[in-house]
């Protein structure tokens, strides 16, 4: 073994050699900074020697091993990361040769591809890993979707190392979505709302979160088609249609919740009076004079206009043109 002094002496190059060395080093640095992608391709990152067995030498806690409770770790499924011949942990976390190799004391290990909000890997990089396998089922639509536009990571919603991903269960999904969609969470606590806060309806009952060519990532072609999935009785076509209903349910309803019964966007009769102004009762102002104790008004109290015109979604009665039959 050489002493430090001896080592330094042995490695001391000649003056010309030092100059040549500096020149080569400079060229090497320049080459590094100007390296084309082709150069990167020429020197690809290496995979680990033994795959998952290498990883588990360090990463053996329950959180990591929980992946074996998921569909990502099914040896009989050739498409699964742990399917026969697949890349196991490195299918998602990328080549781990450098990460698992030797590093100098005090030096950080080269990072693997990480997922989640605290990951060092940028969102595009995380999602690219998921899309390696999920391009066909979700990835194509993802590109250009509003979630993609806002740089949402797959791992912002999905938890891969858990037996039952909360975002895939109706009871827990909205908690995940509401992390970002806080305004919708506020609305879900309004007095008249779909049973989302009770965990009996999921956001994906109406929205296709992986992207769609529809507006607002709706699950069906448009708003009405989506509503008719559960409210097919309102689809008609009726003999007597109510024009704004046939066009867009959201003209009168706020599906995320409302202070008004029926999730209406405004209190009746004023909502109806935003369109109807016929002489007589449709055009009368409804004020405190119509309250109990004064002259109770059938246009203000009870179901307001719907006390008589109950069939506001349309009527199929030959005498139902005024939506009363």
């Amino acid at each position, binding site marked *: 073994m050489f002493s430090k002094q001896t080592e330094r002496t042995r490695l001391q190059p000649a003056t010309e050699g030092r100059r040549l060395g500096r020149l080569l080093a400079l060229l090497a640095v320049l080459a590094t900074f100007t390296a*084309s*992608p082709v150069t990167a*391709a020429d020197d690809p990152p290496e995979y680990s*020697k033994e*795959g*998952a*067995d290498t990883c588990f030498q360090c990463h053996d806690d*329950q959180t990591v091993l929980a992946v*074996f*409770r998921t569909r990502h770790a*099914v*040896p009989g*499924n*050739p*498409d699964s990361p742990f399917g026969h011949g697949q890349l*196991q942990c490195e299918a998602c976390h990328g*080549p781990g040769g450098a990460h698992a190799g030797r590093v100098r004391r005090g030096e*950080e290990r080269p990072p693997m591809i990480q997922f989640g909000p*605290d990951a060092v890997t940028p969102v*595009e990089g995380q999602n690219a890993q998921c899309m390696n396998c999920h391009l*066909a089922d979700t990835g*194509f639509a993802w590109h*250009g979707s509003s979630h*993609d*536009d806002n740089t949402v990571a797959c791992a912002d919603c999905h938890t891969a190392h858990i037996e039952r991903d909360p975002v895939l269960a109706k009871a827990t999904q909205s908690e995940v979505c509401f992390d970002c969609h*806080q305004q919708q*969470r506020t*609305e879900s*606590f*309004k*007095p008249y709302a779909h049973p989302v806060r*009770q965990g*009996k309806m999921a956001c994906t009952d109406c929205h296709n979160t992986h992207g769609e060519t529809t507006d607002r990532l709706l699950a069906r*072609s448009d708003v009405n088609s989506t509503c008719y*999935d559960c409210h*097919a009785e309102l689809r*008609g*076509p009726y*003999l007597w249609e109510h*024009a704004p209903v*046939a*066009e867009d349910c959201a003209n009168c309803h706020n599906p995320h919740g409302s*202070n008004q019964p029926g999730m209406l966007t405004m209190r009746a009769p004023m909502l109806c009076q*935003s*369109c109807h102004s*016929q*002489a007589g009762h449709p*055009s009368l*102002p409804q004020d405190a004079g119509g309250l109990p104790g004064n002259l109770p*008004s059938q246009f203000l*109290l009870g*179901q307001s206009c719907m006390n*008589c015109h109950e069939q506001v979604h349309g009527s199929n*009665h*030959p*005498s*139902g043109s*005024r939506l*009363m*039959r």
Partner: protein
Amino acid sequence: MTTKTTRYISKTAMSFALLAPGLALAQADTSNWKCESCPFDSGARAAYEAGGTYVSDDAARFGNGTGYDEKGGYANLDGAGRLVSEEYLLDWTFADLGADSRMLQIDGGLQGKFGFHVGYRELPYRRFDTTSTIFTQAASDRLLLPSGWVPAGTTAGFTQLATSLAPQNIGTDRQIVDLGADWTPASQFRLFADFRRQTRDGIDITSGPSYTQTSFLPRFIDFETDQIDAGVQYATERASLTLAYYGSFFTNNNPSLTWETPYTAAPGATTLRMAREPDNDFQQVSLSGKYRFDAADTIIAASLATGTGEQDQEFLPYTINPDLGGNALPVPSLGAEVDTMNYALMLTSRPFDKARIKFGYRYDERDNTTPQYDWTRVIVDLFALGEAEQNTPYSFERSHLTLSGELVTWKDIRISGGYDRRTIKRDYQEVAEQTVDEGWGQMRWQPLAWFDFTLKGGASERDIDRYDETVGISLGQNPLMRKYYLAYRYRTYGELVASFTPVDSPLAFTTTVLMADDNYSQSRLGLTDSEELRVTADLSWAIAESTSVYFMIGHEAIDALQTGSEQFSTYDWVARHDDTFDHFGAGLRYAPVDGKLALRFDYNRGDGNTSIFVDSLSGGPSDLPDLESTLDSARIEASYAFSDRLEGTFDLRYERFQLADFAMVSEATLPTVLTMGADPYDYDVYAVGIGIRYRFGVEKLELAD
């Protein structure tokens, strides 16, 4: 160098590495990748929970969704399990079997080849348990007055009312059966099919008008909807193509409702009948595809769907008043048909690393081809309308064009902007053609790994070709009225989103602010102005590895102004609506790894308020009483592990809800409306549940030796 700085540099370096075009990975030699230590899942594993829940009081609204609407005890049976081999998998989950919100789901199959699912769930909708009615059910579509009923002209004259009222809860139950399967015969092909049957039954409120009076009727709901989704998908790494079919078939087993009016009626008009939702179906075939080009990371997505909706329910007669008879119907049923066409094209591309552009076009058409006939209406079974009126089958064509781009600039600031154009063409309405042009811009700045800031703003103008007043005039409308969904509108909006999530810090904070202003400047009657403000803030704090707390607030305020005219002239009254809602939430999670006790606590409060101020020439200024609601909802869930397999569970829910709504009046408050007397909600209920959970099968994951 700090840890944060190191992570940021790593992140930056990795982003370049991952986004570098042409970056190739080494070919992995997996011949030595035995995965000998991998604890692959096999065998059966399950956790079942049995117990009971006690609900302290009757409260319909508390049972909405949960099924816990009546005071008393409920059995709790929950569970989930899995049977798995190297290739096969069977998953099952069931919950709330003792309540009307029960669910069961079974998924399984040969993984990667064939899958199936079977599901059943119930969804209770509980509306009122304070309602009552005088009507009795003769059949599911026929209501009778009580024997000895004495008709009167107004509710004040109903001498038999008090003795005839019987409690009648209002609510329905929805049951959903779901069967589906998918098959992957080859790696690029996938076939899928799903069948769902939804049934809904129970009682809802409808109203049955007679002459100038009306009655709230307990209406028996008996709906059935069958839905089919099926298709085939072809997918490669570069492209996918899906051909799909969607069918929805609705049946109403009570397509009409007949009732006896409690009011004094002309001879022949004592028994009345209305039509209810007709049977209908809708079928659609769609073709959608995506293709990815290598050049500039470009993806094109396109979809095309064509569908037909039909309705041919046999008509009721104009009236069942034997003294009128009514004219013969032009047709025994309508033969209504709506043809739909939807197509879309979307292109996204990244012409260079720091830029992305997007183009989208969508077209939706509803072509109502229902034939038109002349109808001679009988008004509320009393008066035959002399003149004929035609049905109006509404159609529209809607398109949406989007153009947007994003550029990553200095300091990773993302600048994006876009232009949207929406058009609608309609028939039979006041506005035949309407165009909304919208421009927006957004800046997203992430100066530090833990600070994310987005600012967005835009403006849109909804313009119309013209407002054809003659359409409204023919229906008696004031020619100055501008319907809010048809009227000219100018909208401006701004949105801010900021999140602070310091790396290695236990705190995370996010806030959003949205402001919007809608101005209907060309409307002299109708909705003229609307303003919106929404604010939210979330704070979470990971106190320790096993403990975290969160706080969240939300505020929403929508102000609207409308005008009306009781003199059928220019506006002579205004109504101002101030609609606010505030939400506060807080919670705690305690779940130590390998600990015996796990705890979860959530509290939510919601305060809603609607103030309506009316000022008219005839009545002067007038405030309607505020419509107020207050919700307090808390839940504590805890589990204690007696052993690796046995746990005790505890679940306490508390909910208090109070509503002030001037419109909810007693049965005879209104002279001409016999209501069902629903009380404004006012309850506080707790539901306490205890149970035992037992786990079967291997739980702890250990590396194989």
